[in-house]
């Protein structure tokens, strides 16, 4: 039997009492009415879609079974609180945050950064007001938000790669071909910025960072509104600040940009 291009509940015959909204949902119909492309035929979920899903699941299961036959899950000696692993690494998906411990105090690397990532991700649909580029792989109509997101995504995995594969005993940097048993020389003495310069730098960074884009791109400021604009750019500035701090540490051996009696940044 050939595909029926347009499906209607009425064709069900026996189950006709079901109103159409029960089958597709009211929101669905309202949302769909605008964007039905001319060539986009309707197909039945069963078997067309269900079969694809079954195939995907079976392929995944096959890979999983094969992998589990070939590679054993790691298991070291029994847990011993008196014998510290060196290096002691977090699970791989948190190793990026652990890597940030080199550059930040734990309350930033382990608490504020993940918190900002989660809040920023959750807020994304409410901050990105651009209605374009929906429902297909789109980069060109979203020149601002796509690079921003990909920057964070690559940063996340970049830090994981460094922490997971390039850190040895005492969290020292080792290339994969270097021998962990050869100790690394201690890092050069680190410096802190003087308090007034540090405070000025932080204020200038966030002040200008929030002010300049609004002045340069007036249209964006107007279309986003104050709350959206400040929230979105603050999150972006925090993300870039992570990279800036890493660069300052690597290039100029800066430990803290701002030292206060209560916390250090």
């Amino acid at each position: 039997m050939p595909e029926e291009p347009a499906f209607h509940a009425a064709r069900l015959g026996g189950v006709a009492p079901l109103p159409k909204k029960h089958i597709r949902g009211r929101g669905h119909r309202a949302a769909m009415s605008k964007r039905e492309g001319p060539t986009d035929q309707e197909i039945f979920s069963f078997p067309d879609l269900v079969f694809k899903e079954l195939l995907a699941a079976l392929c995944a299961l096959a890979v999983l079974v094969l992998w589990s036959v070939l590679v054993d899950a790691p298991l070291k000696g029994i847990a011993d609180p008196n014998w510290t692993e060196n290096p002691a690494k977090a699970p791989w998906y948190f190793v990026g945050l652990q890597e940030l411990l080199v550059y930040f105090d734990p309350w930033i690397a382990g608490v504020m950064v993940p918190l900002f990532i989660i809040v920023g991700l959750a807020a994304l649909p409410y901050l990105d007001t651009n209605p374009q580029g929906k429902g297909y792989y789109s980069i060109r109509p979203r020149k601002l938000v796509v690079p921003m997101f990909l920057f964070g995504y690559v940063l996340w995995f970049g830090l994981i790669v460094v922490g997971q594969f390039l850190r040895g005993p005492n969290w020292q940097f080792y290339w994969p071909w270097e021998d962990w048993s050869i100790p690394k020389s201690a890092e050069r003495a680190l410096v802190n910025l003087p308090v007034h310069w540090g405070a000025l730098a932080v204020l200038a960074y966030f002040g200008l960072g929030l002010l300049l884009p609004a002045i340069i791109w007036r249209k964006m400021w107007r279309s986003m509104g104050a709350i959206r604009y400040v929230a979105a750019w603050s999150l972006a500035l925090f993300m870039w600040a992570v990279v800036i701090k890493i660069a300052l540490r690597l290039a100029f051996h800066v430990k803290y940009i701002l030292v206060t009696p209560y916390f250090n940044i």
Partner: protein
Amino acid sequence: MRLFSRITHTQLWKSIFRHGFEDTPRNRALAVLTNSLLHLHPVALPESASRVRFTFCLGGLTFFMFLVETVTGILLMFYYRPVPEYAYLDMKLLEHTVIFGMFLRNIHRWAGHAMVILVMLHMLRVFLTGSYKPPREFNWVIGVLLLVATLLLSFTGYLLPWDQIALWAITVGTKMAGATPFLGADGPFHDLFNIHPNNDLRFLLLGDNEVGGNALLRFYVLHCVLLPVIGGVLMFVHFWRVRKDGGISRPL
């Protein structure tokens, strides 16, 4: 064939299966409508929404990994005791005395990693296709919570083998909780609420000042009961909202 036909005409059969086998539009629709699991799907959908190269099945495969984890996890629970005296021993018994025990643990471990990777890739796919935009904003938020639930599920499971990797990974990971501003004993402003090592966030997680028996039991309960239930509820809402917000996103 006659026998088959007689079986399919019994009251028992017809009480279970509500549609015939002829390839008719009606039966195709009923196959989805009368099956509680398949009913996650719409009866019909635009052809473009079912293309593998659009979704790469990433969300569905994440869910599939969750199902694999549930099945293998329940089986592992038969062999595992969450106390320091037995946890590591049970790993060894699983490896050496339980038939397919090592295979079971391997699948559980690797499917867990696969789930974390797949959920991150699914998020990238949804982002790149702009599928978080209205009317799907809230479902993206549910998705972010599911990402967090997935990471916590994996993290709590990491401690259970009770080996050196587990102990020190969780020690490193939970040290962060102690650095939380206001609520961690090592965090800034901790003295504001009189927070010290015996009443801070880290102590709440571990039930102790270090990773020990209390932490193992807490992580076990979180891993096997609380987080899967939270994840399940969030998944239920997530899938429901995909349908209610207009199905899989497509070009305007």
